[in-house]
């Protein structure tokens, strides 16, 4: 077939308006069969932001100051570091990110020397997105602390800890050393192309080193454009109260919360959509 020289260089897709129904990159159009320049660059920007989120170090000083003021903390936050020295090591040795370095462990042991027991230890961890932690920690903890202080039960909170180069399981070691009944790990999740700022929440009852995933509960995708901060705090608070009542966490609690989600989100079995409408 001969080529029409008057045809446009970039062919738009008439179904581009389907973009209103999904965040997927549909209807991008094409130059030949390739991505138009504007769409290529939009992708590159999103990937650059996600990569920066992985490699950008946590500003511990700023976060500590912000949390101390926002939460009106009476004692200083404890700053800890995992066994992974830097990001390159962190990415290749997940086992190093799961435990504290010697200095941090000693620091924590001194801080916990009073033998006081706590109801909850909150551990803020950079994980794979310091951006997520930097942006979402203060609003989330603001909501949570308010719920805890207005609850009928009393909640004794352990000193707030901030961990660099950490993975989820490091919270179990910290919670154990602090004599806490439960630990909340707030950690930057693996950044997606359209979600470089996603925070994950993990809770363990009776934390100690060596526990596996089946002992933890997770609330994921906490960010302004994902699971709203307020709603995440509410769901975590309910989970925490239930853990305290049943004295457990993990699979047994998780099953109940998933049932809730099922009823709310996908009880309708309808497959109706525009492709098969008639």
């Amino acid at each position, binding site marked *: 077939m001969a080529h029409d020289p008057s045809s446009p260089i970039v062919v738009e897709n008439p179904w581009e308006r389907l973009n209103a129904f999904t965040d997927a990159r549909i209807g991008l159009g094409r130059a030949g069969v390739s991505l138009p320049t504007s769409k290529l660059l939009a*992708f590159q920007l999103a990937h650059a932001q996600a990569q920066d989120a992985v490699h950008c170090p946590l500003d511990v000083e700023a976060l500590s100051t912000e949390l101390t003021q926002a939460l009106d903390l009476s004692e200083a936050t404890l700053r800890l570091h995992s066994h992974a020295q830097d990001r390159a090591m962190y990415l290749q040795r997940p086992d190093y990110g799961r435990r504290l370095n010697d200095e941090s462990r000693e620091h924590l042991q001194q801080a916990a020397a009073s033998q006081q027991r706590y109801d909850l230890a909150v551990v803020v961890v950079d994980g794979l997105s310091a951006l997520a932690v930097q942006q979402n920690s203060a609003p989330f903890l603001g909501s949570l602390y308010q719920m805890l202080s207005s609850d009928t039960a009393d909640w004794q909170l352990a000193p707030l800890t901030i961990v660099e180069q950490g993975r989820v399981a490091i919270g179990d070691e910290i919670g154990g050393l602090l004599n806490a009944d439960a630990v909340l790990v707030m950690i930057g999740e693996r950044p997606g192309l359209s979600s470089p700022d996603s925070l994950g929440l993990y809770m363990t009852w009776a934390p100690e080193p060596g526990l596996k995933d089946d002992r933890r509960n997770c609330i994921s995708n906490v960010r302004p454009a994902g699971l709203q901060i307020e709603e995440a705090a509410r769901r975590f608070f309910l989970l925490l109260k239930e853990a305290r009542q049943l004295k457990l966490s993990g699979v047994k609690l998780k099953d109940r919360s998933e049932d809730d989600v099922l009823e709310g989100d996908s009880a309708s079995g309808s497959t109706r959509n525009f492709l098969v409408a008639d």
Partner: protein
Amino acid sequence: MAQTYHTTVGSRSYRFASLAELMAKATPPRSGDRLAGVMAESAEERVVAQMVLAELPLTTFLNEALIPYEEDEITRLIMDDHDADAFAPIRHLTVGDFRNWLLSDHATSDVLTEVKAGITPEMAAAVSKLMRNQDLILVAKKCRVTTAFRNTIGLPGRLSTRLQPNHPTDDVTGIAASILDGLLYGSGDAVIGINPATDNVAQSVKLMRLMDEVIQKYQIPTQSCVLTHVTNTLEAIEQGAPVDLVFQSIGGTEATNRSFGFDLSTLAEAEAAAQSLNRGTVGRNVMYFETGQGSSLSADAHHGLDQQTCESRAYAVARKFNPLLVNTVVGFIGPEYLFDGKEITRAGLEDHFCGKLLGVPMGCDVCYTNHAEADQNDMDNLLTLLGVAGCNFIMGIPGSDDIMLNYQTTSFHDALYARRVLGLKAAPEFERWLEEMQIFQDVSTHRLNDQLPAAFANSLRHLPKEPRHGT
């Protein structure tokens, strides 16, 4: 019986305590083997291990199991199913000679088909460790593995795609939008396959119905699959759901698969159940498996083996159940297993080669995560190399961005690029459909239609006015 291996290079002597250690140390470097503590300690030790490995007779792998026969049902599968007659033409070879033979003009496509049942996963893994990337490509291209359900996949000169319309809340309009986008870019002949966001039977059945309705309405010569646990799909079949393909992630050790919640008997049951539905029109391959280096180590089920050998053993599991598609999701697992673009590329070529040599219909999810040292250029390179190597299928997703699984894989555009530069085509039945539906002006030159095809223009008139998905 188990033995140790010694050699001397110059003034240094090297000792490898077991066949597993020798295999691991002969493996090109990658972060997962470092994490497992099985990697060679120096570049020289790696090449020395390769030299020792090259001298081993292939029969070594029949006499010495890397994971004991008594402990692992996959070892038993490999040993019990080994075809001595098929093995006869290569029985006398060492691993090094095996590389020469594979590259030689003796090993034609027909000959490779005849010997495949005589090759064990460990033999394939061992020889791959001695091969350069071009060797892996050249030999894989000679291997022919063709499968069929509603179309024929893996024919020479063809490159198929899985249309992957994932959505973070399984919203049906959102999924339908991605399906339409893919079909109009010529994607979806390998399968239309959804990873469900909510992973249970009810949700899976709903998504199966959604895809079945689309396939029937537009009479698309392709198949659908919901990538849920095999036991969920079995339950869906009992409920009367329209199941084309049964999905399962598989690994190369019994302990890996137990951590995934199934064993070989589960897969046998699933294959029989799906075949009993008789939904295929041109073939009866009903299984879709996914694999990937690092899964056994991740499950702490690797028995001290290197990750590539574990991966190759997964193909023994796959070939037992006559799959339509086997997909190595090469860069999904993250940089602690494959650190960067170079390691991902090498692993993708190894997996494709080993699978094809063993007779498995290999495709590849050419992909990376945002915490790996990789980017679109690395994926372009691997896609092109796999296209040259005759890979059966790749993924197709809108703009490379999986908004549910949060990783990047090949786009609808990428597949058309590969088909254009390499002169590859979709599966023949699907190719005819693309032309009949006027999705392409000229399918032989990969010229898409600039106008919206009539059947789909009609569908777009049924779009709801208000978006239903959240912000």
